[in-house]
C-alpha cells in the first residue's frame, strides 16, 4: 500500500563543487557524492544506513530532510515531491521530519538553555501548551524537568544527546533522522541512548533512519539496513537477512572487520 510509504527516493544524485580544482574563470568541477540512490521507507520502519567515511551516508540523510538540495532524482515525503521545494514551502512541513545530530556540543546552541532549545521548534511550528510539551519531552528522554534551566555545557555527553532527542520528538514528527548519534559516546551511555531510542520507537511509533558506521549498533535497532559504498547502494534488505547472509562482497568485508567482544572470532 503506497499510503504506508513515508519516503520514496528515486535515482537521487547530489554533488559538491570541488573548489580545489576550480579554474580561474568558470565553474568548479563537481564531485559526485550520491550516485543514484533508490530507497523506500515504510511508516513505522527503523532503517539503518551504514557505510565507511566517504560513503555519502550523512549527505543522503541531509538531502532527505532537505538541508541539502539534490542535483536530480526525486524525494517524495508522504507522497509529496520535496526534491526541489523552496525553503519557504518546506518550513511548515518541517515539524514532520526532524533530525538528531552527531555532535550535541555543536548542535545545541551553547547560549540557550535546554528549555528554550526544546521549545524552539514547538514555538516556530505554532504548537500550544509549549511548556507542558517541553516537560513531556524531557520525561520521554528520562531527563529531570529541572534541566530546563541548564546550559548544554553543564551536561554530560549522554545527557546532551538526550536533549537532542527531546528536541526532535517534541513536535511529534512522522520521521526522525539520527546521524551517528552514539559515535561520540562511551559504551555505557551509548547503550542507554540506544535503549531510549528503541523504547521511543515502540512507544511513539516513530519512523526512524539511523545513520551509523557501526553495524553492531544497527543490528540491534533496525529492521531494515542499507549499506552504502562511495555514493551507491550496495545492499538494502531486511536486517536479519543482511547480517546472516550478506549478498554483497563489501557487506561481508564490513561484517568481518567488526571486532566482536569475544575470543571465538579469530582474525588470521
Amino acid at each position, binding site marked *: 500500500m503506497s499510503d504506508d510509504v513515508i519516503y520514496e527516493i528515486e535515482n537521487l544524485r547530489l554533488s559538491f563543487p570541488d*573548489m*580545489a580544482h*576550480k*579554474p*580561474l574563470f568558470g565553474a568548479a568541477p563537481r564531485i559526485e557524492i550520491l550516485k543514484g540512490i533508490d530507497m523506500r521507507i515504510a511508516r513505522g520502519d527503523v532503517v539503518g544506513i551504514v557505510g565507511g567515511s566517504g560513503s555519502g551516508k550523512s549527505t543522503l540523510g541531509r538531502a532527505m530532510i532537505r538541508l541539502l538540495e539534490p542535483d536530480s532524482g526525486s524525494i517524495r515525503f508522504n507522497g509529496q515531491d520535496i526534491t526541489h521545494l523552496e525553503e519557504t514551502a518546506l518550513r511548515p512541513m518541517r515539524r514532520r521530519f526532524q533530525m538528531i545530530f552527531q555532535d550535541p556540543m555543536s548542535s545545541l546552541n551553547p547560549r540557550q538553555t535546554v528549555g528554550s532549545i526544546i521549545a524552539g521548534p514547538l514555538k516556530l511550528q505554532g504548537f500550544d501548551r509549549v511548556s507542558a510539551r517541553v516537560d513531556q519531552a524531557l520525561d520521554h528522554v528520562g531527563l529531570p524537568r529541572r534541566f530546563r534551566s541548564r546550559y548544554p555545557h553543564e551536561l554530560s555527553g549522554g545527557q546532551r544527546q538526550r536533549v537532542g532527542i527531546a528536541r526532535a520528538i517534541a513536535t511529534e514528527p512522522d520521521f526522525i533522522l539520527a546521524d551517528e548519534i552514539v559515535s561520540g559516546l562511551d559504551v555505557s551511555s551509548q547503550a542507554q541512548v540506544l535503549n531510549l531510542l528503541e523504547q521511543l520507537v515502540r512507544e511513539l511509533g516513530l519512523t526512524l533512519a539511523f545513520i551509523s558506521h557501526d553495524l553492531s549498533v544497527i543490528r540491534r535497532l533496525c529492521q531494515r539496513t542499507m549499506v552504502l559504498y562511495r555514493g551507491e547502494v550496495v545492499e538494502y534488505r531486511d536486517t536479519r537477512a543482511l547480517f546472516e547472509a550478506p549478498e554483497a562482497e563489501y557487506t561481508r568485508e564490513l561484517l568481518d572487520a567488526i571486532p566482536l567482544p569475544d575470543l571465538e572470532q579469530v582474525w588470521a
Partner: protein
Amino acid sequence: MTLIRRILLRLLTTAITLFGVAVIVFFVIRVVPGNPVAMMLPPGATDDDIARLKALYGLDKTIPEQFLIWLGGVLHGDFGTSITTRQPVLSLVLSRLPATIELSIMALVIAMIIGGALALTGTRKRGTKVEGTIDVTNGVALSVPDFLWGLVLILLFGVLWPIFHISGRISPSIDLPFSTNFYLFESVLRLRFDIWADLVSHMFMPSLALAIPLAAIIAQLLKQSLKETMHLDYVTLARTKGYDENHVITREALPNAVLPTLTLIGVQFTFLIGGTVIIERLFSYEGLGNMAIDAVINRDLPLIQGIVILFALIFTAVNLVVDLTYAALNPRLRNG
C-alpha cells in the same frame, strides 16, 4: 587551488581595491560639502580668482571627467603637481617614501624580535608565573595604541632620561654624503656608522612606539598558535623520541605555528604603516605621513591623492607578498 590561479586572483582583487581607493579619495574630496577651491584660496579672493584657479586645476569640468583625466595621468605615471610646492607629486612622494619605509621596517623587525621572544618564552614557561606576566604585559601593550606609546616614550627617553633624539630624522649638523634617501641603508653600505648611530638615535623612539602594539599582537597570536600546535600528536611523538622541550618547540611546533599567524601579522603590519602618519608627526620625522598631514592642512589636493594612493599601493603590496609567502611556505598549496 594552484599557485598561479591564486596569484592571478589576488592581482585582480588588488587592482579592484586600488581603483576603489582612487575613486573614493577623489570623490570624498570633491563631493562632500566644502568647496576645494575655496579651501585653497585665502579669504577675500574674488570670483575671478576662483574661476582662474578652477580652470588651472581642471576643476571646472564635471567630477567624472576630472577623474578620468587624473586617472589617465596616473596610468602614465603623472600624479599631477603639488599646489603648495609646484613640484610633481610623484617626485615629492618618492623623496619621502624611503624615510617611511625605513621606519616601518625597523619597527617590524623590533616587533618580530620582541613578539617572537615573548611567544617562545611564554610557551616554554607555560603554566608558570612567567607566562602570566607575559600575558598581562601583552594585554596592556595591545590595548594602548602607538600614539600613546610615542608620548610615553618621549617622556621617558626625551625628558626623564634624555638619551635619544625626540624629533627629526637626522641631526641638521650632519653633512649627508648619500645619493639616495634610504639613509639608514646607505649609511651601512658606506660604513658611515657615525651617521648610522645618529639615525638610529632618531628612529629608536618612533619605531619602538610603532612596534610595541605589533609586538604584543605577534606574541599573542604566535603563542596561541603554538599552544594549539603543541597539543597535536606529532609534537607528542617528537617528545617520546627523546627530543628536549626547546627542540620540540622550535623545530616541530614553530614552523607550523608561524604559518597561520603570518597572514594576520601581514594585516597588522599594514596597520603599523598606517600608524606612521601620526607617529611621524609626533616625532617630527620627515616621512610620507608627516608630509601627508601638511598636505591636508594646506589643502594640497593633488598631493593628498598621490599620498593616499601610494599608501594603498603599499598596503595591498604587503598583503600580496604575505599571501604569496604563505602559499609558498605551505606544502599543501605548493603541490596542490
